[in-house]
């Protein structure tokens, strides 16, 4: 199976499960009240539609024997997912260390690891951009950003 066919089948299954969850959840609420349609009315029907369309997507993926032959460039995908993971970790860290430190670390990682630039360049870009954000947003524009133990 090719990447897209696998992807269609997996995403179809995930969306079918989500649709089923929506339908199940909506059964716990009023479908119709004395005043008219209840909170379950709309979700119930789009949940049903989601299940039906997802199943259709899965069937189409299974039937298309000679589908697209797109393959995954794991190195490129790794770069994108690595960046995302670093972003996710920086958000977790932000709660404890604040924006300035977490953002500087995220920038350093992107420049040094993802774009493979010299450590000195990464350090300069990280410190300069974090400081610039701090000066522009919390200091100049009074926009609040997550603060760490040092107050920034």
């Amino acid at each position, binding site marked *: 199976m090719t990447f897209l066919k696998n992807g269609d089948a997996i995403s179809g299954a995930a969306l079918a499960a989500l649709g089923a969850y929506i339908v199940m959840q909506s059964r716990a609420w009023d479908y119709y009240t004395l005043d008219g349609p209840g909170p379950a009315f709309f979700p119930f029907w789009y949940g049903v*539609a989601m299940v039906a369309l997802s199943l259709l997507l899965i069937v189409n993926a299974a039937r298309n024997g000679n589908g697209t032959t797109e393959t995954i460039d794991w190195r490129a995908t790794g770069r994108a997912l690595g960046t995302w993971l670093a972003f996710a970790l920086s958000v977790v860290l932000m709660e404890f260390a604040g924006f300035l430190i977490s953002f500087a670390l995220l920038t350093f990682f992107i420049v040094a690891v993802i774009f493979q630039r010299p450590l000195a360049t990464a350090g300069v870009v990280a410190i300069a951009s974090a400081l610039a954000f701090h000066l522009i947003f919390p200091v100049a524009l009074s926009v609040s950003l997550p603060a760490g133990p040092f107050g920034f």
Partner: protein
Amino acid sequence: MEIASGLLHGFAVALQPSNVFWCFVGCLLGTIVGIMPGLGPAATIALLLPLTFKMDPSGGIIMLAGIYYGAKYGGSTTSILLNIPGESSSVVTCIDGYQMARRGRAGAALGIAAIASFIAGTVGVIGLTLIAPPVAAFALSFSSPEYFALMCLGLALVVLLSGTSLIKGLLALLLGLWLTSIGTDLFTAQARFIFGQATLLGGIDFMVVAIGVFAIGEVMGSIEAGEEARMLPVPRGIRNLLPNWEELRACRFAFLNGSITGFLVGCLPGGGATISSFIAYGIEKAVSKHPEQFGKGAPEGVAAPEGANNADTGGALVPLLTLGIPGGGSTAIMLSALVLWGVKPGPLMMTESPDVFWGLVASMYIGNVVLLILNLPLVPLFAQILRLPVYVLFPVIFGISIVGAYGASGRIFDLGLLVGFGLLGYIMSKLKYPSAPLILGFVLGDAMERALRQSLMMSQGDVLTLVQRPISAIMLALAVVILLIPLFGWLNRLRMRAITENG
């Protein structure tokens, strides 16, 4: 008469020094964003939206609109000099624009793009000025069933034209509807899909979804693509940026074609600048006496699509401002911005918020002049932006995304959601799920549910009320026909051609 007085009032608003300033800022930012591949106008508007919360609504929407149409001007620069479209709507400009540049006519190509953008952009705004009032007057007769049917029609068009797979478009739309259901039901105060999290009772902030899906998703896609390109030299001096007389003569029809095609396609939800630019290019090639020149550096091949993608802006604002129906990602974010400022787009906007409506329309006339001035003599300067290393640009986008998502609510929880929606945007792009239906489903979901439930309340549960009223019946029938198009061979081939050329 009413239009003339409205427009005069609009100029009085738009020519206030602060609004001229915001118009300039929007156009400048839009041009920069358009030039930079990897960051689109939707992402930029979403990123900057939190910063406009404290602004006057007229100034705020004037700036956001400036970004929207400014990006279309700027997109041509990258297409012509790098053969990489800065915007999806500039894809077709690459075909002849880059060939002209390779033949030493880069300056003329940039000049033609700017002139076509100015002419067609202005024609588009004139169209908006003349057509919006009668459309709004007609829409005053709409009640809940008509609004529900109108949203179904708009969403059907968006789903039809947003990707090659209708099923994926519909699934993205349903996902958007679900995301907007999260929170408290407005009719009964029932909590829905909150997963035991009290923070979700107020629903998911639109900014978090838009920034995550567009900005973070786009950055991840760009990091994955990791393209490097060699820029052709930019001629300096205004004289080197002006096309010669023969080139201008060759573009006469293209200016007109781009203007009309762009405006008409722009009025359709889901049509969008990309499709209008391809249609204008196709028409131009079909009626040309020298079709063999297309693809080899024909000036008309630059003028027609560049004109169309700019005239599209005026068209796209007709359904947004008069009916409250956005046709794509950028206009959906602008709709949210208007709602956040307490302005209700729809048939009453012209009378309830004349400053915002007419101020925006008038500012677009000014914006087109600003963009012509920015884009002709300053192109060499803007082209230097392309030398900004991506390893500096991408962390900055992450930083602005964090500021945008956190600034709206002040909750780390929203940053967690931002991370999730960023991944969702990336996965959707990898699996070829279109993101526009998701965003439109999210933006229109509440209003759609409200219109449906109100319709059924009015009719005491009789679903037939939706098809017993003529306007509503016609729009629902059209929506069904649109969704059945993939079943008709030749129509589907046309649709697929438009979308695949779309990139």
